[in-house]
């Protein structure tokens, strides 16, 4: 059952990613990326990462991608053609083969005593909000606080960058 779910989510993620990369129209690419992130959230649930799966759907697919679509529609960018030209798609697949072979070879070499690595048993509350929260507030408190400073810097930067300049100043 787990194998079936893994293949469904994995295949869906790869197909959506390919659709995103070979698309010329930004809105369709954004929707394909939303689909990819949703399939990845399913994979996280398979890996007992419940908090991260929920955050993936809320933050990534629900906030960041909506921001993308907002900007795409605000700037009103629309390309007339559907997919990229055939030559470009061939070039992309060739590139994916080359880059993919490198990475897939690297990760396929992970073996312990010649056997593939199986996922063992974990604690009952592995990956729940409580467990990750305990880690965040005790062991990783400093990165947590610095992340809030980072978000503040991003907010200030975004407001300044997107502000309409008045012509007679700087």
């Amino acid at each position, binding site marked *: 059952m787990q194998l079936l779910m893994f293949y469904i989510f994995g295949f869906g993620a790869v197909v959506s990613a390919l659709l995103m990369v070979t698309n010329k129209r930004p809105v369709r690419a954004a929707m394909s990326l939303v689909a990819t992130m949703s399939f990845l959230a399913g994979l996280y649930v398979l890996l007992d990462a419940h908090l991260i799966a929920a955050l993936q759907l809320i933050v990534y697919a629900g906030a960041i991608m909506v921001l993308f679509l907002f900007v795409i529609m605000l700037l009103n960018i629309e390309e007339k053609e559907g997919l990229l030209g055939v030559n470009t798609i061939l070039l992309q697949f060739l590139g994916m083969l080359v880059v993919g072979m490198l990475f897939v070879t690297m990760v396929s070499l992970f073996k312990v005593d010649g056997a593939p690595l199986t996922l063992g048993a974990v604690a009952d509350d592995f990956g729940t909000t409580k467990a990750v929260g305990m880690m965040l507030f005790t062991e990783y408190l400093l990165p947590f606080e610095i992340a809030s400073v980072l978000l503040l810097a991003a*907010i200030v930067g975004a407001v300044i*960058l997107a502000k309409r300049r008045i012509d007679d100043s700087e």
Partner: protein
Amino acid sequence: MVTLNSYLVLGAVLFSIGAVGVFTQRNALIIYMCIELMLNAVNLTFIAFSRFLNSLDGHVFVFMIMAVAAAEAAVGLAIFISLFRNKETVNVDNFNLCKG
């Protein structure tokens, strides 16, 4: 029986798809979306390793990566808006001011 290798291979495949998208796309927004795809592939690798090693450090790091990606999305899209205001296009072939 799903092994760790399956998840790592899937993460590698998604990462290479995103990398190739960054190289070959001409639309700046889609390039940025491919960067987000690469970040997601790395998240999958972290979660898979965290599950395998029975350690929650990977989850915390994925949390940080998501925070960074959110901040980066906000600032990057603000940059795109400024660029578009000046040039009326998001085709990366037209941004050649630094060309020698």
